[in-house]
């Protein structure tokens, strides 16, 4: 991935110097060894901060909705899933393609911090990570371990079918095609917990989710980070009617929030996994999203939001759709 960083700096410098763009939105090294943060390069000197690595999780396209970037020419670094999110925004005319310069990257997946944590005794802060050919070397004062990437990559990345943007639709693509892991995993394998939850009886399922959802602080990070959750006024921010209050001791309110969040994303989720990654409470939101994707695919055929051109499954409906509610008619 080091070469992507170099290529990126070159192209960014070029774009800024030639005034083709006002700003390059990319990533810079964060404070912690396992963290990259969004970074806006506005002048030549900023360019050397730009990087791209397996911690470059966040989708940057949502920043385009910020007033700060309105009317500006912006260059954007995009992984496959980021492009899908942006594509939905473009299709909905939320942003104007003419204002953008799109830098696609060949993505090999991003690390899942929570999986990484389980692999080591030391805290992540004290470790150094070294990316090797097919393994990740983790070292700290306490230990030196090597783990295969499939153990620490985001489940979404292991199931990713679209890791690089279409070359006709972006202005340039950086990096070379390739995978972090040679293991072929099906979506079901990557999200095996869904099967386990489905097998539970209703009471166990309820208890499982109660334990998860009751930790929610309703910080709305999951909503804010999601590249396809882009309504200008979210129903949870509305004051009249106000749907939720600040009391986070009520399970019902958590259920309300999570059912609606998952449902609103259902046929738009591009599978970036950011919602689960940003959750300070490690609530496995991805299981809800993936469950809905699974159901939609089962009933209405497979559909990849932000890739497929056909309309999204909840945007139309047909007379001969399955009817689970009433078999006998009239």
């Amino acid at each position, binding site marked *: 991935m080091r070469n992507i960083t170099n290529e990126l700096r070159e192209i960014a410098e070029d774009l800024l110097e030639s005034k083709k763009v006002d700003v390059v939105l990319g990533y810079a090294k964060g404070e912690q060894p396992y963290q990259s943060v969004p970074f806006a390069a506005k002048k030549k000197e900023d360019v050397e901060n730009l990087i791209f690595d397996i911690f470059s999780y966040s989708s940057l396209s949502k920043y385009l909705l910020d007033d700060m970037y309105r009317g500006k020419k912006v260059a954007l670094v995009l992984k496959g899933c980021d492009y899908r999110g942006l594509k939905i925004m473009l299709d909905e005319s939320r942003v104007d393609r003419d204002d953008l310069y799109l830098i696609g990257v060949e993505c090999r997946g991003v690390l899942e911090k929570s999986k990484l944590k389980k692999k080591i005794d030391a805290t992540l802060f004290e470790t150094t990570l070294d990316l090797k050919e097919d393994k990740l070397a983790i070292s700290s004062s306490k230990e030196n371990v090597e783990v295969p990437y499939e153990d620490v990559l985001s489940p979404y990345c292991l199931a990713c079918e679209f890791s690089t943007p279409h070359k006709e639709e972006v202005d340039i693509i950086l990096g070379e095609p390739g995978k972090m892991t040679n293991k072929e995993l099906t979506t079901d394998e990557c999200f095996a917990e869904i099967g386990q*939850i*489905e097998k*539970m009886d*209703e*009471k*166990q*399922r*309820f*208890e*499982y*989710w*109660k334990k998860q959802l009751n930790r929610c602080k309703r910080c709305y990070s999951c909503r804010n980070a999601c590249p396809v959750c882009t309504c200008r006024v979210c*129903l949870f921010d509305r004051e009249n009617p106000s*749907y939720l209050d600040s*009391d986070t001791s*009520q*399970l*019902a*309110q958590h*259920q*309300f929030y*999570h*059912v*609606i969040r*998952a*449902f609103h994303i*259902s046929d738009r989720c591009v599978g970036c996994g950011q919602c689960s990654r940003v959750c300070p409470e490690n609530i496995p939101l991805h299981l*809800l999203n993936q*469950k*809905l994707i699974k*159901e*939609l695919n089962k*009933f*209405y055929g497979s559909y990849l939001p932000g890739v497929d051109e056909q309309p999204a*499954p*909840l945007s*139309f*409906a*047909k*007379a001969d*759709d*399955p*009817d*689970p*509610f*009433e078999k006998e*008619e*009239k």
Partner: protein
Amino acid sequence: MIEQNFEPKIVAFCCNWCSYAGADLAGTGRLKYPENVRIIRVPCSSRVEVQMIMRAFQNGADGVMVAGCHPGDCHYDTGNYHTRRRMMLLQSLTSFLGMDPDRFIVKWISGNEAAKFKSTVEEFNETLKKLGPADKVRDQRCGI
């Protein structure tokens, strides 16, 4: 513990063109059906949003029913097809979260099916009586 003589509260979202007319006919025809159903008239069953259903549960409903025209008979041609897709997805989601799926039903009832309206509500009422109060999805501060 299921309390004795528990009378479930039912919220029924009824489509203006069919099911509401069906309920109306049941009323004018003096058909007796459980009184504990609160009918909310909507212009089309596809008007019913997920937040309306969840809100009803939070605020005291023990069961929610969405009723629309029979598929093929929608006043707006395809409204109830949309209802069907969405409600099906909602039901999978709530059931995945371990909320009783039987507390939420979708029915197609036309304007002249007063008897079907009556029997649907009666059956639903019986189911809910067995299930007891919907505490799992209730905002406990509501005091109902």
